[in-house]
């Protein structure tokens, strides 16, 4: 028994050993490492595949988005997304459809330190978003809160054209180069509405590019994109 206890004690014994240490000045071959790993600079284009997938499972939604970015500095990219979205919002008392186009412009900053010539990213970014759309109030039932008299459902569609929204968003995402010049990106965004045009006697409940507008004027977005980098130069 004691043998084991003594053996266990040896487990906690540690010794520091130095053998390869040499003062920098004494190095004979003090040339600095001259290999620089070059990475591609260029235009990256692709599509958001989460939107067609979402449209498959959700009959009230359809959307398409193309994404692109351009590398201007080692860790800085100019980024843009443009697309079309249509969504039907069903609430307890109202049913409305928003459809239209949007564009988001901004930049991404890559905070990930790549190893060798790898080209992955963990990025944060900012976008300014703008959308032009129309919203149709398909039907509504007045909230009469009584069952004594019936409440009829008004099914005359009421469309408001030329609605516009401006917003800001913060983006956080991951990007991985899976094949040469081919990237998969996963990102999420938090959006804050800056200005939105409201229809008369109704409210803009959904804006393309922004998604559902919450009571506080905030929203969330999610992107899953496949992109291809067209390399212009290496540096």
């Amino acid at each position: 028994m004691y043998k084991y206890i003594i053996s266990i004690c040896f487990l906690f014994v540690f010794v520091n050993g130095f053998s390869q240490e040499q003062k920098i000045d004494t190095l004979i071959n003090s040339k600095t490492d001259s290999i620089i790993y070059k990475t591609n600079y260029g235009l990256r284009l692709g599509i958001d595949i989460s939107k067609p997938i979402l449209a498959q499972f959700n009959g009230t939604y359809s959307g398409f988005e193309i994404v692109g970015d351009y590398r201007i500095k080692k860790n800085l990219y100019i980024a843009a997304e443009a697309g079309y979205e249509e969504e039907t919002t069903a609430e307890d008392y109202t049913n409305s459809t928003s459809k239209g186009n949007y564009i988001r412009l901004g930049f991404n900053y890559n905070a990930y330190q790549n190893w060798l010539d790898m080209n992955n990213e963990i990025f944060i970014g900012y976008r300014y978003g703008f959308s032009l759309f129309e919203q149709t109030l398909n039907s509504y039932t007045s909230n009469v809160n009584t069952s004594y008299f019936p409440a009829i459902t008004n099914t005359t569609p009421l469309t408001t054209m030329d609605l516009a929204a401006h917003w800001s968003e913060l983006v956080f995402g991951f990007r991985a180069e899976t094949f040469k010049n081919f990237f998969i990106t996963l990102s999420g965004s938090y959006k804050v509405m800056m200005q939105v045009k409201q229809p008369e006697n109704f409210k803009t409940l959904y804006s393309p590019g922004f998604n559902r507008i919450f009571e506080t004027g905030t929203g969330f977005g999610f992107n899953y994109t496949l992109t291809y980098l067209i390399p212009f130069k290496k540096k």
Partner: protein
Amino acid sequence: MRKIILLLSFFLLINTSCEKDDFCIKNPITQSLIINFYDDSSKETLKNVKNLYVWAEGKTDSLYINQTINTITLPLNSIATETIYNFSKENVVNQFKITYTPEDEYVSRSCGFKVIFNDVTFSSDNTWIIDFTPETLTTIENQDEAHVQIYH
């Protein structure tokens, strides 16, 4: 790959759990008509109506059945421009007619549209009701106080 799946499900969770952010807590949305019953001989004093039955014209079910009270809350028919109520006190029926212009007004995502009643006019065939005030109202706005005082 596992990480991506984990992340994906996390975002999905965000998406689904944020489904409902507001509940309709403003209650009632569409305002009802509040009537107070006063004593005709001393017009400041509330007076109970004995054996009160209240039903809308053409309806078989009553809102108030054999009650002795001095204030009633009546819903108005939002799909018509008038509502006729029958007030029965000790088996004497008094018809009370309310005419108005209903208008839908948007409240919020969860509450939808409320109905506001404009240009309201009251009339009565005065069997047991002696008098009432006012005869017209521009709109039925809040539920804080009675809209009509009935003297009997």
